[in-house]
């Protein structure tokens, strides 16, 4: 039960804050563990007790807050963390709209923010405010390039797309329009749906009428299942692609036989046993083992995004300590600079190389092409 899982986390969290002293590094964590995007927020909150507790000889304490998926609650949580708790950095929030709303507050107070959110809009295009934001998920474009690459190789000439009517689907349709034009693939139909829709018949009929060689479904979480099952029911026989939003075990469970053969690109966490050894694989395996031991289930990728944020901070704190004591503006500013200079740091999602222009820092080591075979994730070779 949920309560059983969250209680230890809460107790542990409060124990950590209780022992707080002035010198230690304080990190705020804001997740959406309740509300519509709880699917994303719960594994993130469960990851907090696993985050590194020391760096450069200093202890790190975490203050975990829930914003119940509500952007205005995120703003409140950020203000509380910045003004009352005087944190040195913030990990979160879980949702893209929530993150867009707090960038200015992080920037005003000069607090580095590590956002485990999907939309690239939090770090692109780079502005004075967004300098303070780092993103621990793969940019949609990186994933999309892998998918489009596979489409070109397998001779796909026309593509239909069904996406959610939210920033996630919106950004994907922008990225795909650009990449498809470059690759000479024709987008025949772009349809939208709501996560809570009880039927996607109309959209899928419209896509099928344009008879594309393949269909891409861009939807986060379990909502990515229904478009695919509907297409299959109506007899669509072409290849179906999914985004990293579908890279969750409920996708396999809900989709069952209908999602067999689906191709998607996502982090290596899904296919740990099959990828060749690498530093990222080692870290991801450790994270998955620790999380499973603590919560009794394997973590969703979203949890890994928060874990990586913790690793990035642990990696940057020693450098920042040279410029000032935790709790001072100098320290926070130095922390930001150190985060920006992160190079070749392996996390659960891949390898990070931050630059002033790229605050996400992934390269092709941050994604694998994966196919659903026998109702489990398999590395596509």
């Amino acid at each position, binding site marked *: 039960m949920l309560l059983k899982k969250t209680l230890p986390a809460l107790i542990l969290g409060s124990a950590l804050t209780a022992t707080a002293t002035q010198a230690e590094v304080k990190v705020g964590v804001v997740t959406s563990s309740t509300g*519509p995007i709880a699917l994303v927020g*719960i594994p993130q909150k469960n990851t907090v007790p696993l985050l590194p507790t020391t760096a450069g000889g200093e202890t790190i304490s975490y203050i975990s807050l829930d914003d119940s998926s509500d952007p205005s609650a995120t703003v409140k949580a950020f203000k509380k963390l910045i003004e009352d708790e005087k944190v040195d950095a913030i990990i979160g929030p879980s949702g893209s709209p929530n993150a867009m709303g707090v960038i200015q507050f992080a920037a005003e107070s000069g607090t580095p923010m590590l956002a485990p959110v999907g939309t690239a809009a939090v770090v692109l295009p780079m502005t004075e405010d967004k300098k303070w934001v780092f993103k621990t998920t793969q940019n949609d474009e990186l994933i999309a390039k892998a998918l489009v690459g596979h489409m070109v190789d397998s001779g796909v000439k026309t593509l239909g797309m069904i996406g959610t*009517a939210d920033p996630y689907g919106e950004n994907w349709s922008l990225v795909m329009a650009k990449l498809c034009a470059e690759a000479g693939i024709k987008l025949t139909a772009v349809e939208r749906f709501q*996560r*809570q829709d009880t*039927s996607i*018949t109309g959209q899928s*009929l419209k896509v099928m009428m344009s008879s594309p060689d393949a269909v891409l479904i861009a939807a986060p979480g379990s909502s990515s299942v229904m478009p695919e099952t509907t297409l299959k029911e109506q007899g669509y026989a072409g290849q179906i692609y999914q985004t990293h939003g579908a890279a969750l075990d*409920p996708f396999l469970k*809900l989709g069952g036989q209908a999602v067999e053969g689906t191709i998607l690109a996502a982090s290596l966490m899904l296919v740990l046993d099959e990828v060749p050894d690498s530093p990222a694989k080692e870290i991801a395996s450790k994270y998955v083992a620790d999380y499973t031991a603590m919560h009794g289930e394997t973590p969703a990728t979203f949890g890994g995004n928060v874990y990586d944020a913790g690793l990035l901070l642990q990696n940057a704190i020693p450098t920042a300590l040279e410029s000032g004591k935790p709790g001072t503006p100098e320290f926070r500013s130095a922390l930001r600079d150190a985060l920006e200079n992160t190079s070749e740091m392996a996390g659960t999602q891949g390898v990070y190389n931050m630059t002033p222009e790229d605050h996400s820092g992934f390269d092709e080591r941050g994604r694998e092409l994966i196919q659903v075979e026998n109702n489990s994730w398999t590395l596509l070779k």
Partner: protein
Amino acid sequence: MNLQIAMLLGQDGITNGAIYALLALSIILVFTVTRILLIPLGEFVTFGALTMYAFQSGQDSSIVWLLMIMMALDAGLDLKQLVTNGMEARKAQWIGLKLAYAVIMVILVETLPLQEIHMAAQVLLTLMILVPLGPIMYRIFFQPIASAPPLVLLIVSIAVHVAMVGVGLLMFGPEGGRTAPFSAATFQVGNVMLKSQTLWVILVSLFLIVSLFLAFERTLYGKALRATAVNRMGARLMGISPDFAGKATFALAAFIGVASGILIAPITTLYYDSGFIISLKGFVGAIIGGLISYPLAAIGAVAVGLIEAFSMFWASNYKEIIVFTLIIPFLLWRSINSSHVEDEE
């Protein structure tokens, strides 16, 4: 757009419309009898679907503990009333019976091999656990304020809805669920495939609507509820208990909600928070019926389903906007056509 597509969309629209019609009827029923806009109705839909899913996927069925807790609260309130109003042997017995019912439910859910039992038994068990939550909800949240102004009732109704969504997240988790269909058969009509689940939805909805109609026209209890809807004070003077009327309508609404959830669970993925938008579409139907006319509401709700299906084909971006904008012309038409009566309360 050819005939085949029109038929597929029509099938889809009528299926959803049938569910909206059932919900619209319960909304009107509850509103006319108790003046409460039953916003948590959608939660009964999702709870029904997700409880079935929990049974079928072998998850923890903690929902039965909610029944236990609510039943205990309910019994506590009854007991308090008994103590202040003087003991009555029959009522004390009744409290014992209710608690025993909840205990039996807990024992059934904890001991039965839920995954293996026949689907009909799963459906029955789901109904037996969830339907009592309706009257209990009325007893705990609405009965103490039954004579409050409609606005207060509406606010409490919203609060109960928000609380139930939270409870849903706690019990079912954030992931959606989809159950096995009642039967996997499909029918070929022309060149269109009809799923048997669609027929189930339409037939069961029709059956429920007809039996509701008969119950209200032919039975004493139905007439009592209708009397309360027409004139609360008058009904009370004739010896119809308003508490009984409230509980009975809530039980009916809960039954319809849970049944709708069980019916659509095999067609669509439902999440713990999907209920609101579904009942809101039922509400649009109810508004078309002016919150008073059952046949108009049913027709309106089916129209909502059809418009939804076709707008999702023509303009998927604007589907929800189109559906909810429908309400405006009807509100305008209603407010122009009906003479305004000051609220008596």
